[in-house]
């Protein structure tokens, strides 16, 4: 048993007051969960503390919340580990940051610390004193009460947005669909989603653009794009690529990958949607596909990035893009001029390769040919090695029957068990 202080962001709409922080002292084994701590506080101190939960086993997806700023499930986060994280972040800020002088509001929003004057020190966290575990409702969602959020507008509406059901070929068969098990393995990762919303809560694109379809819904979209029974693959991809808040609005920050309690890695599914869109020859008005192709082609020719050429080829790809530039291309190119002028002024961009697209040097010696040889091979193969499905060799390394390229495991259980 150990003592913990949990600092909960509370909000009751009926009170008319703004949100506030309240601290509770709880006592439980470090191996128990943050949710257990909250339920103890609710049981012993304040029955009005609102938190949504059910299974306590990371299956139902009800108790999404932020613990020390990290979106997660309350029931899947051990309180001992949460304390270690809180201690670590407090120690990082050391003595120079002002966190140590933050006035503590006592339980019930007491008045200590609100009085101004030299005696405020008595109400500050002493250096090395207990660091509270900070618990907040999920982000990117309206709060209904305390830790209970409204998932309708930013989660369920977006899930419905991607048509989350099968759109099959022709008439439905009389009995079940017959598919090769191998053809379904590809989507097992996205099928593991429990709709908890932790990824949505953590999404840094959605924080800047609330209209972004978001990680949960796009992972769900891949679940149907990758399903061999679905007949609308190209339509789905076109829709998601053309939407300015679709697959090309993901800022590749990995927040959802770390937030997901089930290993779905929504960002990886978004990257697979982009790859499939490219394979299906879908050109989008957001320069998503042209940016990807420009990048890939530049490295084949130059080995390192020609930034000027990337900009030009992303907005106005190829001869056609330059002869008949789109309105967006003209707008974006003109929009980038002030930045370029500033770069020339400071000397940042004052050289021909930086000013003129395509002047950038190649890798020295025969190195560029080596890069081209790699392209030639990979464009023919284009294999995806999904660790979620294939697992790490690790404990299987001693097995005698591991052959080159052989698939050892097709079960996601490996990744789950880690």
């Amino acid at each position: 048993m150990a003592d913990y202080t949990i600092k909960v962001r509370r909000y009751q709409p009926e009170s008319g007051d703004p949100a506030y922080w309240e601290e509770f002292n709880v006592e439980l084994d470090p191996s128990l969960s943050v949710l257990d701590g909250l339920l103890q506080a609710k049981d012993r101190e304040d029955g009005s503390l609102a938190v949504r939960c059910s299974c306590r086993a990371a299956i139902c997806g009800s108790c999404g919340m932020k613990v020390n700023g990290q979106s997660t499930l309350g029931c899947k986060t051990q309180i001992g580990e949460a304390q270690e994280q809180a201690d670590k972040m407090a120690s990082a800020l050391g003595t120079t940051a002002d966190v140590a002088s933050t006035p503590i509001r006592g339980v019930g929003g007491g008045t200590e610390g609100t009085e101004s004057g030299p005696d405020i020190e008595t109400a500050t966290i002493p250096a090395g004193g207990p660091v509270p575990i900070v618990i907040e409702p999920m982000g990117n969602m309206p709060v209904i009460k305390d830790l209970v959020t409204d998932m309708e507008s930013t989660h369920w509406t977006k899930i419905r947005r991607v048509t989350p059901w099968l759109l099959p070929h022709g008439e439905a068969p009389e009995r079940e669909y017959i598919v090769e098990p191998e053809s379904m393995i590809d989507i097992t990762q996205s099928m593991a989603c429990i709709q908890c919303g932790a990824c949505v809560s953590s999404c840094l694109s959605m924080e800047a653009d609330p209209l972004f379809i978001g990680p949960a819904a796009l992972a769900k979209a891949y679940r149907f794009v990758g399903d061999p029974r679905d007949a609308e693959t190209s339509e789905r991809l076109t829709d998601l690529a053309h939407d300015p808040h679709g697959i090309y609005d993901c800022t590749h920050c990995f927040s959802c990958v770390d937030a997901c309690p089930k290993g779905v890695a929504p960002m990886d599914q978004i990257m697979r949607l982009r790859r499939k869109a490219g394979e299906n020859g879908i050109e989008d008005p957001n320069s998503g596909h042209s940016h990807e192709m420009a990048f890939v082609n530049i490295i084949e020719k130059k080995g390192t990035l020609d930034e000027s050429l990337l900009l030009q080829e992303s907005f106005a790809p190829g001869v056609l893009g330059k002869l008949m530039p789109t309105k967006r291309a003209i707008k974006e190119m003109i929009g980038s001029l002030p930045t370029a002028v500033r770069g020339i002024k400071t000397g940042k961009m004052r050289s021909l390769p930086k000013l003129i697209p395509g002047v950038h040097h190649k890798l020295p010696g025969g190195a560029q040919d080596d890069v081209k040889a790699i392209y030639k091979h990979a464009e023919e193969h284009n294999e995806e090695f999904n660790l979620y499905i294939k697992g790490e060799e690790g404990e299987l390394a001693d097995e005698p029957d591991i052959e080159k390229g052989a698939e050892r495991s097709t079960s996601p259980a490996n990744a789950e068990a880690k």
Partner: protein
Amino acid sequence: MMADQIKVAYWPGCVSRGFTPELHGSMAIVAQKLGIELVELDRANCSGAGVIAEHNQELADTLNARTFALAQQTGLSMMNICSTCQGAQSECQQRLDADSGYRAHINEVLSGQGLSYERSEDGSWNNKNFLWLLVEDYGLDRLAAQVKRPLSGLRVGPFYGCYIVRPKERLGYNQYPDRDIYLEKVIETLGGQIVEYDGARKCCGFPVITMNRETSLTQAGTHVGDAIDAGADCLVTPCPLCHLNLDMQQPEAAKVVNRDLGLAVLHLPQLVGLALGATPKELGMGKHIASTKWVEERLTAVPA
């Protein structure tokens, strides 16, 4: 590890030799002052920044296996100065290390170039961002001893870049759990004051600058604004791509978030270099878009 002389195979990345040339220059100065020997991998290729992997995963894995193999040929571990390179390369390395069959397949392609990537069973060969190398291999005590001009009174906001903080499992956080507080440690070691603000581990927005300029610059502008509100004199970042959005695009970001900005953004080697006694001019700070004058003024208040 506190080897007397650190020598690494050095991958500077593309942007440090492109739109942020001051990064490449300042790293050379700092390495010399710290006594870190850099063997530059001038034949190595772009890490793909995640974009090549988005197009063709095997292509990205093979290209980065090539870079690793070039580094291993020198007999040295690898160092990079770009969070994005670190993230993209670690992703490929994780797949290559996970499966001997897959690795053999990739190495077959490289064999035509006389190259081969070997998994390091004990982790003795590794690829580290300068920030990681500075804390884990060079050591903060040793760094503290080199400080000629403590950054006393300079209020510095850390900005990590997503690719060296997430995903934790892939980036060695099991072995080095403090990697997401190294910038704070370095700032403190150099005598500066840490500024806590909301954006330190968030996304600069650069990856979507081409596809959704508004989302991108909203992110950059918000983080810079938050740091200013928290009292920062400057930000420091180990990622040149973050620098592009936070510094080069800062005037444009200011328009999007509709407020005045104007906050210096230093590359990690520049901040270290200032404390080691290098001049702002040597460190290329004049090349920045957001003026670094205020940082220079605060520093000259302390005798060099």
